[in-house]
């Protein structure tokens, strides 16, 4: 059988060997933890604590600000020091709750609502919503919304996105190796919401150990199967993943549910398991700290709200002074100018690179080589779209499917003229999306 894949894509240096064999370690946060009220797509959460309040780990400190929103939980015990705007990874100032860590790590105590078998569909969704779970692969879309499509009986596939196609990232890999039963358990819980669905774990074939382990653990599960995907970036993109495992195609105007699919990332599914089975809200996640500038690349279980500076120090700090630090992977992550920003529900990695390949190369004129066309998973012509964006030709941009760009970065990566194609297209998309909202 031909390998499951998609048309386009790239094979960048993956850098995973730096951290893939490092087991997940717990780290202690520093004195101050910061919880932005907007760590997700949708309405910001509303603070329900006040300055001076003492809170326990696992206590809700901000409640959901609407249907598409998610509550926030304290990940340590301590005192509310301030509720004020703080800088986040994107560089924006976001209203945040600041906790002084008392170092006691006192917890509220976690109890499942009821045994899993007794829970109804609505109860499971309630637990997920109350636990503050959002898409932890980076997008941050509230999971309870994703898991509640209009016609749940029409969902045929629940796909666990185990591709981890971003270079350098190994957090999902470690999670799959160390806690596969939680991943499988979480997927089974989600399958209870969709009676007609089959569960698929889609894993890139650069992780044969995960594939073998997950296959072993699911061989008695009639509703689950593990599919090996060709290793190629962006295999873990929602549209490319759905296509690879089901052959179904969605565009930017559609939701996975429109073709009978629901896609969730590894950490998100584990969070669902912990919320439903263990009664624990979302308070921690796995973060990979890696890159050639990091002394000891590692995978950490991080209490959300811990600053990146503290996470970096746990990895021994910098080996050499980096030129660039990135929150997330090198293809879709944000470059950061300050490490004193908090980790959030969507922080997958901290990547520090000694050399910044972007600033080292001067963009030249487009020679029309067509490499961007070959690699674009959206099957558009990135060089032309970037040109329309640069000239601000909105109509041409829209007519040529400019809105179909998923910002994966393949075009900028492959461009021999080193043109910032993704950036140009992204800027224009932002403008068009803002216009549409009006």
């Amino acid at each position, binding site marked *: 059988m031909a390998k499951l894949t998609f048309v386009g894509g790239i094979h*960048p*240096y993956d850098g995973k060997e730096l951290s893939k064999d490092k087991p997940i370690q717990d780290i202690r946060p520093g004195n101050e933890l910061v919880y932005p009220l907007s760590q997700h797509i949708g309405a910001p959460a509303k603070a329900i604590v006040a300055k001076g309040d003492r809170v326990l780990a696992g206590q809700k400190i901000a409640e959901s600000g609407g249907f598409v929103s998610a509550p926030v939980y304290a990940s340590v015990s301590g005192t509310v020091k301030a509720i004020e705007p703080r800088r986040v990874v994107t560089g924006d100032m976001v209203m945040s709750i600041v906790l002084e860590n008392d170092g006691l790590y006192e917890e509220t105590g976690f109890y499942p609502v009821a045994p899993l078998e007794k829970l109804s569909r609505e109860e499971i969704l309630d637990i997920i919503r109350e636990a503050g779970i959002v898409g932890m692969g980076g997008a941050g879309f509230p999971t309870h919304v994703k898991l509640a499509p209009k016609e749940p009986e029409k969902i045929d596939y629940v796909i666990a996105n185990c591709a981890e196609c971003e270079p350098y990232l190994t957090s999902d890999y470690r999670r799959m190796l160390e806690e596969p039963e939680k991943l499988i358990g979480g997927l089974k819980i989600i399958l209870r919401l969709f009676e007609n669905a089959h569960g698929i774990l889609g894993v890139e074939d650069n992780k044969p150990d995960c594939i073998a382990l997950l296959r072993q653990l699911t061989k008695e599960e009639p509703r689950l199967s593990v599919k090996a995907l060709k290793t190629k970036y962006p295999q873990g993109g929602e*549209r490319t993943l759905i*296509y690879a495992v089901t052959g179904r*195609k*969605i*565009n930017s*105007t*559609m939701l996975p549910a429109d073709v009978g699919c629901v896609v969730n990332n590894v950490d998100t599914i584990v969070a669902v398991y912990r919320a439903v089975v263990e009664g624990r809200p979302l308070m921690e996640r796995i973060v990979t700290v890696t890159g050639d500038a990091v002394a000891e690349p590692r995978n950490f279980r991080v209490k959300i709200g811990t600053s990146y500076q503290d996470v970096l120090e746990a990895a021994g700090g910098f080996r050499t*002074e*980096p*030129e*660039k630090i*990135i929150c997330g992977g*090198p*293809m879709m*992550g944000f*470059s*950061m*100018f*300050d*490490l004193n920003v908090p980790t959030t529900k969507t922080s997958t990695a901290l990547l520090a690179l000694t050399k*910044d*390949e*972007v*600033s080292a*190369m001067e963009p*030249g*004129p*487009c*020679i029309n*080589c*067509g*490499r961007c*066309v070959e690699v674009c*998973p*959206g*099957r*558009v*012509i990135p*060089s*032309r779209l970037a040109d329309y964006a640069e000239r601000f030709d909105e109509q041409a*941009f829209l*007519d*040529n*499917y*400019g*809105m*179909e760009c998923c*910002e994966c*970065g393949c075009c*900028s*990566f*492959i*461009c*021999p*003229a080193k043109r*910032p194609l*993704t*950036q140009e297209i992204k800027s224009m998309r932002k403008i068009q999306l803002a216009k549409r909202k009006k």
Partner: protein
Amino acid sequence: MSGSYQVSSNPHIRSKATTSGIMLSVIVALMPATGFGIYNFGPRALAVILVTIASTVLTEYLFGLYRKKMTITDLSAVVTGLLLALNLPVTIPLWIAALGGVFAILVVKLLFGGLGQNFMNPALAARCFLLISFPTQMTAFDCDAYTGATPLAALKAGEQVNVLDMVIGHTGGTIGETSVIAIAVGACILILLGVIDLRVPGSYIVTFVVFICIFGGRGFDPYYISAQLAGGGLMLGAFFMATDYVTRPVTIKGQYLFGIFLGLMTGIFRIFGPGAEGVSYAIILGNLLVPLIEKATRPTAFGYKRGGAHRGK
């Protein structure tokens, strides 16, 4: 420690490929044909090559001085100069070769905006300019090594030609076009390096073969077909000129269409035209159709039905 890091939009890594690297691979891939040309036609071929390259690079350099933007390091002027030289007869007066170089770079490329903006292949446009301006010198294929007509002209006149000699390249013609083997080695280098693919050359050659089988008056005659393929500038044109990024369609379907068009035009020019040759004119004519071809083959984005409505509409 804040403020000392580079900040830019994603992605944060880049592939190793560069424009000058691609140009360098083309130069390397042209070396077998260049070397064979010098071996076949003698040292004067080297002189023509050096003069033409000097003329293209100097033109680019002087223009760079004038516009205060130096672009010779991208090596594209070297590629243009070399390609033009390989398309000239060895007997060409050196000043004509130099003039061709100036025309290719200044008129065809720089005046239209420089690298990436020219609408015709500069080397071929210059060759056609010289063919029209200096028809005698441009078609004088008599030299010390060979006298008489090129094999293609002989073939058209109904004479017998030696296909093996044509494949090896022991025939008259322009400096770089005679040896199919040398060109094939270069083409393999470019294909292996991922610089070109077979979409354009493949559809070009297949279409041409089908055309001459139907209209060549000899039906399916392997001798005639191989002589047509090995003769003239077809191989050099198909692998090194028609594949020029700037002047071929960027859409994948468009590249096939472009190749088919070139095959048809070359067939028409060779069979029905007054001359035996047709590759250069076919390619620059094809270059002019590129915007139309691209418009007709605009791709449909992932997840849409062809021609279906989308957000932009």
